[in-house]
């Protein structure tokens, strides 16, 4: 079920002010009454599913057409992201090898499969971002095109080696929801989905974003993913209802999510207005919660079972899973030994660079902690100031 931010199809508020005088269109009544502005009769927005718990298509559900190659690629990406990458990087963080990581679920892949999307590792994997690229960001070495500036787990860059420029995902920032209004501005001209966790609907920037999206209007597709929590805070402490749109498609059902996003995209483009889709899913956590949900509801399992009536068997599965693990571990090990970004990537201000050069010249060769640090950098401490190369060696 889709809800949409209110709009009347105008573009960029170009109509003269006289046509915007406020008028009331509602009927006048003598007694005040409460109403449910979403469904009218007070019922909840249903949770869309294509596959039931036993992973057979539900009667009447529209099963999206997927060819075998597409299905396989979806499955492979989901397996890579959730079962392998998340698992290994989470463990890496617990063991102290990398400072920071949090996992993500398969909802993102199936949405990306259907359409362009905004952040999240899953999107990047779908678009061809390599494991080496992800590891470079996590280890913040010089191969990260974000120049190691962001905290690990934001594998977002502005440079793609292939693909068209319009597919660039934008670099993300930690303060939550700040980029929702930004996305609205970006998409005032063309459609591009934004994506966010449920908890961020609490922040004022979300409301600001909705306002702009509905009035300008902005051709934006918002995909809210609800995993029931924001760090440790359950939904019940976040808001008094079930979700932004009081439920939406089952995010753990790959096919339902694909349907929903396809429909939403069509509504957005045809109607010229913003659309919000909320998907119920979960984030990778090492807790009982995940185990419970996993038993019944795991997207990969469901999709796999669905597709297993044809293309995939157990040997394939085992071989595939172990190949993925090998690839990820290989990339992880390699990234750990790649050098950190060039010193010049830290900042560009000329005076600061001169100051740093002077300090390095004086202490860089004799003070061991600095020598060690410089040794880990690409270029080993060479710094450019005014086209002149300075080095401590």
């Amino acid at each position, binding site marked *: 079920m889709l809800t949409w931010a209110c709009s009347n199809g105008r573009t960029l508020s170009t109509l003269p002010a006289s046509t915007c005088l406020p008028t009331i269109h509602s009927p006048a009544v003598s007694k005040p009454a409460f109403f449910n502005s979403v469904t009218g009769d007070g019922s909840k927005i249903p949770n869309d599913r294509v596959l039931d718990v036993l992973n057979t298509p539900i009667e009447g559900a529209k099963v999206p057409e997927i060819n075998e190659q597409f299905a396989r690629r979806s499955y492979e990406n989901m397996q890579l992201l959730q079962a392998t990458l998340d698992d290994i990087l989470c463990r890496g963080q617990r063991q102290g090898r990398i*400072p920071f990581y949090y996992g993500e679920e398969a909802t993102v892949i199936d949405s990306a499969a259907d359409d362009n999307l905004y952040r999240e590792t899953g999107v990047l994997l779908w678009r061809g971002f390599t494991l080496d690229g992800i590891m470079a960001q996590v280890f913040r070495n010089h191969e990260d095109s974000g120049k190691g500036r*962001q905290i690990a787990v934001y594998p977002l860059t502005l440079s793609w080696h292939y693909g068209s420029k319009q597919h660039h995902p934008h670099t993300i920032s930690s*303060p939550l929801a700040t980029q929702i209004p930004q996305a609205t501005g970006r998409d005032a001209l063309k459609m591009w989905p934004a994506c966010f966790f449920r908890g961020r609907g*609490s*922040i004022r920037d979300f409301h600001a974003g909705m306002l702009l999206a509905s009035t300008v209007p902005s051709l934006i597709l918002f995909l809210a993913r609800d995993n029931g929590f924001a*760090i*440790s*805070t359950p939904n019940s402490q976040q808001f008094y209802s079930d979700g932004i749109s009081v439920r939406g498609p089952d995010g753990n059902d790959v096919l339902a999510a694909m349907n929903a996003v396809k429909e939403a995209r069509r509504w957005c483009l045809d109607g010229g207005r913003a659309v919000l889709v909320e998907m119920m899913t979960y984030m990778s956590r090492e807790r009982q919660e995940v185990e419970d949900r996993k038993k019944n509801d795991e997207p990969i399992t469901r999709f796999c079972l669905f597709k297993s009536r044809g293309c995939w068997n157990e040997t394939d599965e085992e071989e595939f899973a172990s190949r993925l693990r090998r690839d990820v571990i290989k990339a992880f090990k390699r990234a750990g030994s790649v050098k950190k970004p060039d010193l010049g990537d830290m900042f560009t201000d000329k005076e600061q660079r001169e100051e740093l050069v002077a300090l390095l010249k004086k202490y860089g060769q004799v003070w061991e902690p600095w020598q060690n640090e410089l040794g880990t950098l690409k270029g080993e401490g060479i710094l450019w100031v005014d086209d002149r190369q300075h080095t401590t060696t």
Partner: protein
Amino acid sequence: MLARRLRSTFPALSRRWQTTASTTAIESPSAGGYPSSVASSQLFRMTRESALRTPGISWQDEESDRNIVGGRETRKMNLYQAVRDALSIALAKDDSAVIFGEDVAFGGVFRCTMGLAEEFGRERVFNTPLTEQGIAGFGIGLASMGHTAIAEIQFADYILPAFDQLVNEAAKFRYRSGGHFSIGGLTVRTPTMAVGHGGLYHSQSPEGFFMGASGLKVVIPRSPIQCKGLLLSAIRDSDPVIFMEPKVLYRSAVEQVPIDDFALPLSRAEILIPGSDLTLLTWGTPVYHCESALRLLNSPPPSLAPLIPPSLRSAKVELIDLRTILPWDIETVVESVRRTKRLVIVHEAGMTGGVGGEIAAEVGKRAFLRLEAPVRRITGWE
């Protein structure tokens, strides 16, 4: 002024230890280890005697003779345990006190509120939705009714969405009402400064942004004893206070901390190492980097010895911890600079618009004729 009912502290004390006892085991360092300057610092008070004689300590018991030190106990705590200890004293003694913020109920992302929800109830220690603006506004509202509102902003980097509430509302509350209304009961706690892997949005030191908000106080402790005493003072202060806790010190800074209720004064700097040749002014984590630097200056290792002239090695540098950034202790700093004639200010935040500029200008005005060198600022890169 709200009358606060005080309970007998003894039953409260024994309950406090239930929540802190399980976590007094030695904490292992995170990936990257503890910063070496903190690990090797001599500034921590590691014995009961030295802890009980912390300068400026003021015991807040009901007993008649408040200054007695003998018989008081201390306990080994790191910074987050000291925070928790202070919070539990505040909750125990002040019935109107509540603690709220993102994820505080389960103990907080830095464990500062561990066990408090279980001990004092979920109506007093509760989670808020994800909205810093909402948290600040809510706290202001509570405090305006005379309650003690202890808000937590999960990272100082995220205090910016609350900036409007803090600067336009909290700071001006008393002034705009002509003194009729005030929100002294508001305290906003937040982890600040770099931790090594935080990147752009988990490492900032935003104290400089608040310098123009007259009506607010900004406090930054350097150690567990300082943290507990300053936090209790901040909670009880009659002005709203932003209390910034250097997050890299949460586990790495360990001291013997007096278990009783005590306060340390706000707006008073502390001279950590007396000196006569130069004043080195700083706060928070850089206190330990400065201490290391002074040690290197006085007795440089062989690799650095050729770079440090012997005449400088006997320099006596006065190290001052500012503690309260707004309003800062102008008197102590200026008096020190008048004696030493040189000032260097160190802070983690960038140079432009940082607190150092404000201090340099003020010192320049008051001690211009005594200074033998321009005031120098050593700060984080921009």
